[in-house]
């Protein structure tokens, strides 16, 4: 796997589209991480009711809730996660476009090697993204938390692990689409169409099946943000926020990841490259 990862990294070494997307993802995150607290302060001053906004800021960015909140935002299905998906799609479809997948196989890759190389890149991207979110969480937490005791700082860190599983599964789903459709444009369209269709299917089917739709299953690991204050319930506001990661949600999500890997391998094996 390490050998395959080294080969994959050599492939993207001077691939401008790849580095552009990575920079774009990092820049967007940085703008959010450094920009949003400032934006809240700005709005707070203008609003004439600065205390409300300051409380909001203090509870959202507070250790340890920051981990659940930042993981929730980073894994939103219509948000920055899509950029990572696009990177994976480009990495796979470019090999079909340039027919380099054929060259790889002629030179001595098995079809499984090709797939494993892409999985290695997915793991690396997921680690990279989780690490960036970890650093962002630390920054936001330390600049906004009242308490920075070890217990608070590292509490709820399991949500980062949850994010990692989510993003790996989602990227495997993107890889599967890219292998299925081969063409970059068609794969993008397929992904966006599916992002729109799944909520419609969700709406039509029985509620008990909702958790088992692929993207739903991935998003269920971190369903909601959480803070210590919004546990207060009133007659108008009666909602249970997620308190822990459910084993069953992780299992369904990983089940889908495994299924998409197997389907990808079957497609690669049965197709002329």
């Amino acid at each position, binding site marked *: 796997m390490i*050998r395959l990862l080294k080969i994959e990294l050599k*492939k993207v070494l001077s691939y401008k589209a790849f580095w552009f997307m990575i920079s774009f993802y990092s820049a967007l995150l940085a703008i959010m991480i450094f920009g949003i607290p400032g934006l809240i302060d700005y709005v707070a001053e203008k609003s004439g009711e600065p205390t409300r906004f300051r409380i909001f800021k203090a509870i959202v960015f507070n250790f340890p809730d920051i981990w659940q909140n930042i993981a929730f935002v980073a894994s939103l299905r219509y948000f920055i996660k899509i950029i990572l998906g696009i990177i994976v799609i480009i990495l796979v479809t470019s090999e079909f476009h340039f027919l380099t997948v*054929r060259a790889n*196989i002629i030179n001595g*890759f098995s079809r499984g*090697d090709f797939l494993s190389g892409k999985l290695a890149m997915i793991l690396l991207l997921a680690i990279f993204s989780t690490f960036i979110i970890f650093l962002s969480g630390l920054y936001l937490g330390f600049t906004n938390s009242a308490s920075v005791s070890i217990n608070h700082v590292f509490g709820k860190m399991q949500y980062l692990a949850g994010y990692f599983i989510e993003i790996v599964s989602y990227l495997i789903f993107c890889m599967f689409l890219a292998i299925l459709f081969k063409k970059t444009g068609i794969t993008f369209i397929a992904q966006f169409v599916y992002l729109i269709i799944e909520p419609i299917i969700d709406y039509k089917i029985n509620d008990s099946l909702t958790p088992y739709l692929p993207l739903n299953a991935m998003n269920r690991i971190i369903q909601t943000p959480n803070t210590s204050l919004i546990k207060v319930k009133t007659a108008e506001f009666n909602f249970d926020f997620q308190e822990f990661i459910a084993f069953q949600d992780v299992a369904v999500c990983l089940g889908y990841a495994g299924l998409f890997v197997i389907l990808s391998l079957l497609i690669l094996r049965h197709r*002329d490259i």
Partner: protein
Amino acid sequence: MQFKPLEKVLTISGLDKRYGKIHAVNNLSLEVEQGSVFGILGPNGSGKTTTLGIILGVVNANAGSFSWFHESNSKQNRKRIGAILEQPLFYPYLSAYRNLQIVADIKGISYDDIERVLKTVELWERKDSKFRTYSYGMKQRLAIASALLGNPEVLIFDEPTNGLDPRGIAEIRELIIQIAEQGITIILASHLLDEVQKTCSHVVVLNKGQKLFEGTVNDVLNLSNTIELSSNNLQILELALKEFKNITDIKPEKDRFLITLAEGVTTTDLNTYLISKGVVLSHLTMKKKSLEEQFLELLSEKS
């Protein structure tokens, strides 16, 4: 001269591949011996590239099997083969050197050989240019360099002189002959007959996915040798020739005869016979057909 029985490098049996209605490869069987230069001839669309695609693991056959080095197909076998298939396939945004590093990584060999192969195809000066910036001829030469990397036991060249200028074509032919002299097995697919005639020892002729002929290049050229002969007395010569049973065809021309000998009969046999009849020849030449004439004949016979 080799006296020990020749090792089979590649054995193909009953290979079959259909693309919808098109029968690209039709029950093809053949064997390639170690150290031979094996030409696969055929017009465009005769199944040459599909066959090579199958034995290189990128195309799945519908039926039949093949084995490299007496083993079943595996990626380990492909690492012992250097190949170019159809067109040069590289990462356009990477330099030639980096592209060959990837090839070396996949094959599991060191980078030490990259310099040699790039110098062989005269691309060493341009090793740091991106593949995208290469002309077609340079791309094709890089593909040849990539195939040569790590001194593989078998080389597969699919239309290797495609897109090269006349000098490049001559150089590549020279290179193929040099490689063959080192005892490396070469499988060469081409529709350029001249190329095969100049470089190959064995040849298989394909048409519409079927094997029309298999043998040595000399076998093909000797398939029907025409002999041109003449004498001071054409009437006596004609009478003598008509009596000789080992002639399959006689064509009189202005001052000579074109005859075809039956299989196994040599010009010595003919000459001995004519001398016994008291016929003195003033002219006797074997007219070898070019591979091209022979090839066209083979194609027209079978279709």
